[in-house]
């Protein structure tokens, strides 16, 4: 891996993905620079989480490419991508902690399995990560004993365990009260300043997006409809962007004929 790599950290090129007959991603292209915080905005079902899952190869596209530090991961054998994986941390929507393990064991798991470090070293590193997210003292707790916000923090500590260069967040504030959600946002900002990581956040929370983003991407029906700084997005003339930012509900179907046809046609 070239250490003096200068290009974009993540480059998504013409990505197309189908689930069955349904097209989830429609020719998506996007670039993220090293150290940049990119927020992907969009309503539910617009494909933004799917895009995130592609970046960590939990899904493979029907066509198109994703380059991480210049390496095409979509056409890379699993074993080779596994070498890249520790450089990418992901916080899942539900935090995805292993419920049969304590918080400490959860955070230590990648270190135990993927490194040859001594147990004592792992213990210290785990403490540092938990301290970083404000969870020191909770090492021996089980995930079920923690609140939603604390679980997210623990999930974040686990994502940070391998000192990743890229950090992915899937709806970090989903299911949290505004105060806790703001706490998570502050944590993301802190990580961004402290470690200069490339951060990708998928969300539909506007306030949170404006707070943390260097650049914003707005997705709609599997397509990217706007990319730019928060200021540019706020001034975007694109009708769907305006609708999203101003929280205008979906209108009635305009084409009455098509609507009638859709009602009378059988579902098969």
């Amino acid at each position, binding site marked *: 891996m070239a250490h003096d790599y200068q290009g974009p950290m993540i480059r998504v090129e013409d990505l197309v993905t189908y689930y069955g007959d349904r097209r989830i991603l429609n020719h998506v292209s996007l670039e993220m620079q090293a150290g940049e915080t990119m927020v992907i905005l969009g309503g539910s079902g617009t494909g933004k989480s799917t895009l995130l*899952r592609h970046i960590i190869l*939990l899904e493979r596209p029907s066509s198109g490419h994703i380059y991480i530090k210049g390496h095409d991961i979509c056409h890379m054998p699993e074993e080779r991508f596994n070498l890249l*994986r520790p450089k990418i941390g992901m916080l899942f929507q539900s935090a*995805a*902690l*292993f*419920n049969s393990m304590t918080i400490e064991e959860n955070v230590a798991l990648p270190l135990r399995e993927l490194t040859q470090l001594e147990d004592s070293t792992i213990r210290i590193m785990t403490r540092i990560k938990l301290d970083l997210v404000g969870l020191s003292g909770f090492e021996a707790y089980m995930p079920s004993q923690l609140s939603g916000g604390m679980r997210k923090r623990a999930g974040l500590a686990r994502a940070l365990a391998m000192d990743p260069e890229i950090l992915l967040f899937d709806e970090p504030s989903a299911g949290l009260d505004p105060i806790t959600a703001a706490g998570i946002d502050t944590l993301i900002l802190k990580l961004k300043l402290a470690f200069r990581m490339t951060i990708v956040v998928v969300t539909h929370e506007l306030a949170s997006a404006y707070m943390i983003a260097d650049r914003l991407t707005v997705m709609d029906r599997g397509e990217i409809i706007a990319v730019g700084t928060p200021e540019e997005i706020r001034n975007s003339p694109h009708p769907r962007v305006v609708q999203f930012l101003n929280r205008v509900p979906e209108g009635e179907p305009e084409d009455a004929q098509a609507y009638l046809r859709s009602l009378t046609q059988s579902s098969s």
Partner: protein
Amino acid sequence: MTGVLALIGRGTLGLFRYATGLYQLSRDAGYWTFVAPFKGRSPKWKSALHQMVLVGVNSIPIVGLISLFIGIILALQGAYAMRNFGASPYYVALLVGVSMTREIGPLMTAIVVAGRSGSSFAAELGTMKVSEEIDALEAMGLNSVRYLVVPKYLALLVMMPCLTILSDVAGILGGGLFQIVQLDQSLSMFLISTRDALEMRDIWTGLVKSLVFGLIITKVGCYEGFSVRGGAEGVGKATTSSVVVSIFLVIFADVIFTAFFYYTT
């Protein structure tokens, strides 16, 4: 007419997809169980041991008790059916011994294990799938088959034969209980006639079956768990169908095995 054809086609495709899924899972599990250890990536022994306790040790009371009852039932039915032929106690011992070791022992064990452990495999993996834990494992670069399926495979491969032997013994003792009470036979007499009735072949064919049943139960349970979609309801469905499908496949495999052993004797 086309509706019927479409239905048949869709059903066949579904069956194909299921079979392919099972095949892929068993190929991966086979690789991580038997090939990867030689490349320095050993299975997770600690969690395999934990699984052995869950599926094996904890099933001892229920497998033992059910097999004891089945042994009594077989002896009663056998004595009833053979009454008119003036059959000697030897034949009851033969009937119970041979049916337990060749057939009922492995089958009963498989049914109990499918109900207890196959369903819990599906529920456990299904819940992990729904709560994104399996994604998290994969995202870390940890192979979910190696971490979650292989320990269960190993546990069943070790425990199914053990439980089957237990079931054989309990069933034969159940048959003996009937003989002692009903036919006034001594325990040693009964054991001697059982020993004379049984061949080594009876026992090992049963154990071979139990290994195959164990593979089927793990495979189906884990596959159902991995293919869960849509929350708690999906987990419930997967749990149910893991039991139904694995019992069906166990009995189907049993037919083939029994026929094979019958015609090769």
